[in-house]
């Protein structure tokens, strides 16, 4: 594309100004909360106390065997992420590229599995794998060669299993399916024409081309895996298993709170994240990964023989484990007098549904949930995609820094990020928003930024620049090219991200507790209230409602996305 000199200068100046403005805004939103945490690691006392230098937190971090053990445990548990990435990729490939029988149903199943609230799901697994009363253990004990419980859910492997089946594999499948949809299958066909089998084609063509998406998913999975809290609290504490997230919680919530220790641990992982993000950035900067060019794209499924039925059976089997067990226990639990206890007289009741549905807060919480979820998802996707576009498609100064900044909100666990966000909202010009729904939307927007921005960035990177260049040559401005070329082409990823941001927002508890005004509180606060009191039955009701909401939005967004996709095809 050639631009006349004055136009080019004007474009470059405008791009520089816009880029710097974006950098300043995103930088301020991200750096202040993160700065509070980094500074907190060398500061004595509470976050609100005046600054007084100390290395006590770092000394504690390096000298406490408990903390070090928690770090090791966390590293072990996040090994599930690369494993789930492999399984998820295989599943997504079968669903999208092979289109095995029942692919639409299986994909929806993975979405649903990911939408289920984690606490009741964990307790569902306890019901099955508890060493004392677990249904599977009891069944296995009837076998002649079995003398005691075979499985123990209260172990590192138990935690690993619950995460792996309930969240990690489903989310990897859900993330990677749209990536494979944005992939010109003629590349694979060429490979096959040259005599390569499906495995070699996947190894030599498919995987290298989607490497940025795989790396983004891996990095995001590793970070989120480190932060996981609920499953570890319920299954880890009884067996003395500490992980990074529970350790930070203990340091902050035990009297006297050890803020420097918690902040140092948070900073350590922030450094780790930055190192990983830099490696990721270096790798993606050196390779081009456009999978959709200007010659048109083909989405024909791969030809597969009878084994596709076998593959379909395997997917259904996995789905039965990751969805059937938790969904049945969740639904059943919402109708039980005592969650998971069948031995009492008349164990079933609809009372919990009545209690929740007639709660005066329910209607407003439901409305707030939908409004908040849609608000953050719409605002977020708009801004995240612009940020991603600026990073991928412009030469604006500081775009690499912007890319790095966009990872930061996930560099520290939510409990610490909340403290940082509170500081930002109470001690900056943004204080005028404090106590309003705007502050909550802003905080959730920052919280959801990393994955959505980088996944959008990856999706934009899959689209060859020649398409836009053609539009610009025909006289379209950048925004028109962005709106009519880029967005429709990456719509499968945007739809997936829209739903994930929506879900992340409506399930958020940490940020909402710290920032929500009582009038803007969503359903997750009611869920928290029931959970805190051990009212798992009512919590299950809310869990079912949240999952149903997410499914409705997922199906609606998917239909909209397909329509956009069809229009642009």
């Amino acid at each position, binding site marked *: 594309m050639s631009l006349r000199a004055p136009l080019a200068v004007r474009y470059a100046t405008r791009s520089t100004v816009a880029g710097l403005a974006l950098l300043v805004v995103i930088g301020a939103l991200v750096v202040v909360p993160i700065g509070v945490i980094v500074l907190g690691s060398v500061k004595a006392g*509470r*976050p*609100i106390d005046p600054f007084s230098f100390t290395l006590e937190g770092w000394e504690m971090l390096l000298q*406490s065997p*408990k903390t070090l053990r928690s770090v090791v445990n966390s590293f072990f548990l996040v090994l599930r992420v690369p494993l789930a990435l492999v399984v998820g990729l295989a599943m997504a490939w079968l669903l999208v590229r092979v289109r095995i029988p029942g692919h639409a149903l299986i994909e929806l199943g993975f979405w649903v599995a990911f939408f289920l609230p984690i606490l009741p799901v964990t307790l569902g697994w306890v019901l099955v794998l*508890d060493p*004392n*009363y677990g249904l599977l253990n009891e069944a296995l004990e009837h076998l002649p060669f079995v003398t005691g419980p075979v499985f123990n859910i209260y172990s590192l492997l138990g935690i690993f299993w619950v995460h792996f089946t309930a969240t990690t594999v489903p989310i990897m499948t859900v993330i990677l399916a749209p990536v494979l949809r944005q992939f010109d299958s003629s590349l694979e066909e060429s490979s096959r024409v040259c005599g390569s089998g499906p495995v070699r084609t996947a190894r030599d063509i498919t995987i290298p081309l989607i490497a940025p998406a795989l790396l983004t998913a891996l990095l995001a999975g590793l970070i989120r895996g480190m932060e996981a809290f609920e499953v570890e*609290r*319920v299954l880890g*504490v*009884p067996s*003395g298993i500490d992980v990074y997230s529970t350790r930070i919680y*203990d340091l*902050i*919530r*035990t*009297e*006297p709170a*050890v803020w420097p220790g918690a902040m140092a641990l948070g900073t350590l992982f922030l450094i780790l994240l930055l190192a990983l993000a830099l490696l990721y950035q270096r790798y993606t900067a050196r390779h081009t990964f456009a999978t959709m060019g200007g010659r048109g794209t083909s989405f024909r499924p791969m030809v597969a023989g009878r084994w596709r039925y076998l593959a379909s059976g395997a997917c259904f089997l996995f789905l039965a484990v990751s969805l059937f067990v938790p969904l049945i226990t969740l639904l059943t639990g919402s109708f039980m*007098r*005592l969650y998971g*206890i069948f031995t*009492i*007289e008349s164990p079933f009741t609809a009372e919990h549904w009545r*209690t929740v549905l007639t*709660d*005066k*807060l329910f209607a407003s919480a439901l409305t707030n949930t939908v409004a908040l979820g849609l608000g953050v998802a719409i605002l977020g996707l708009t801004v995240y995609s612009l940020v991603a576009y600026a990073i991928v498609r412009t030469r604006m100064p500081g775009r690499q820094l912007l890319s790095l900044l966009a990872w930061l909100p996930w560099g520290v666990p939510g409990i610490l990020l*909340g*403290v940082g966000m*509170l*500081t930002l909202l*109470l*001690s900056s010009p943004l*204080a005028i928003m*404090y*106590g309003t729904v705007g502050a909550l939307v802003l905080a959730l927007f920052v919280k959801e930024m990393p994955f959505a921005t980088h996944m959008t960035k990856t999706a934009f990177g899959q689209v060859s620049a020649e398409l836009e260049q053609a539009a610009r040559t025909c006289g379209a401005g950048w925004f028109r090219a962005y709106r009519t070329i880029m967005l429709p082409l990456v719509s499968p990823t945007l739809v997936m991200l829209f739903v994930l941001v929506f879900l992340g927002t409506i399930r958020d508890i*940490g940020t909402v*507790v*710290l*920032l929500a*005004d*009582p*009038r803007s*509180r969503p359903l997750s*606060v*009611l869920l*928290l*209230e*029931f959970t*805190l*009191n*051990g*009212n*798992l039955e*009512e919590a299950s009701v809310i869990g079912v409602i949240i999952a149903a909401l997410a499914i409705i939005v997922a199906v609606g967004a998917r239909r909209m996305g397909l329509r956009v996709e069809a229009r642009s095809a």
Partner: protein
Amino acid sequence: MPEQRDLRSGLTRRAFLGLVAGGGSAALLAGCEAPPAAPAAPTQATAAAPGGTPAASPATFLSAAEWERILAEAKREGTVTVYGAPIPDVRRAVTEGFERAHGIKLDYVIGPPGEIRQRNEQELAANRLTIDVHFSGVSEPDALNYLPQGRFESLSGKLTAAAADPAVWKGGRLKWVDNEGRYLLQTTDWVMTDLFANTRVIPANAIASWRDLLKPEYKGKIAAWDPRIPGPGIATGRYLLKTFGDQYARDLFLGQAVTLTRDVRQIAEWIAREVYPIGLGLDTTVERFRAEGFPVERVFPADGPGSVLGGWSVIRIFKGSIPHPNGAIVYVNWLLSKEGQEIYTRAIKEPSLRTDVGAEGIPAYLLPRSGVNYPDQYTEDWLSTVAPDLQKRWNDILGR
């Protein structure tokens, strides 16, 4: 700035108690008769006392005119924002009761105490408070940070005689947690739910002494709320450590391989399902299992009756620009009223310190027995000196 301390702060506790015992209390109490509704005129009565001891300086009640003015202002404010027990039954009952009584909207903030404290601390530092009244438990920061820093608004002079008439409160006095008797007003008082057993496995009379728990047959059979972590078991842990010492705590928790949890439901279910037939530091979640016929019983070893505390029932207002200052006063007075206490205590199932509020529906094991001298974990002295020491010792025993 801390408020000016009254005369009492210059006296030792013993000397002060001596003064009171010397004949002052009856005379002081005489001035506190109040009408059942709003007071007709300014009234004087005893102020607070540490652990319920009458104070030397009398508190002034709101006059009827002042009350009417505050009520009218509160109605103009339209709303009051409160933090209270994150228990759905309590939230619903208190919200409906208050709104019905005064026609003022109640915004009930929901959240775990740790997170709310974090939020409140940062709001205090920025003077942007969003919660008018906190009706919750007390912990060390209240005594170690907020009281010395003068962070609380004095409730003295903000109460009506109808609500705070000492004659209708246990022992003829209001129960304040703070030594000055102005800031932290406690409204319920109950015996901590320290020890439960599943009687199908452990006969009720098998544990006659706390030391019985050290018997070899109970090894691996006990579950407990982690005594280092805020929650129902922290009071039990502190009581045991204070009463029986470090070696006992070590022998029990480490020697008997006690399984720890931080989930109220998990521990109650473990005891009910006989996974661990003995439980330390449960809360009333256990009532849900008892109601379905599980044989889970509170056990009272003879050598340790347990301690008393006030649960979620301590009223406080932070000093600063709260959004609804008049609504806050109306809410506090409603909570202290007979109606407010009936509604609250029935929902939370804890006995009120108001003598005209019955204990119907409240588990008998929560009611303090007459003649028993329970250590009180809801006093400023306990929170500022005893609790931090015990917490440190627990952290040493179980590791930090």
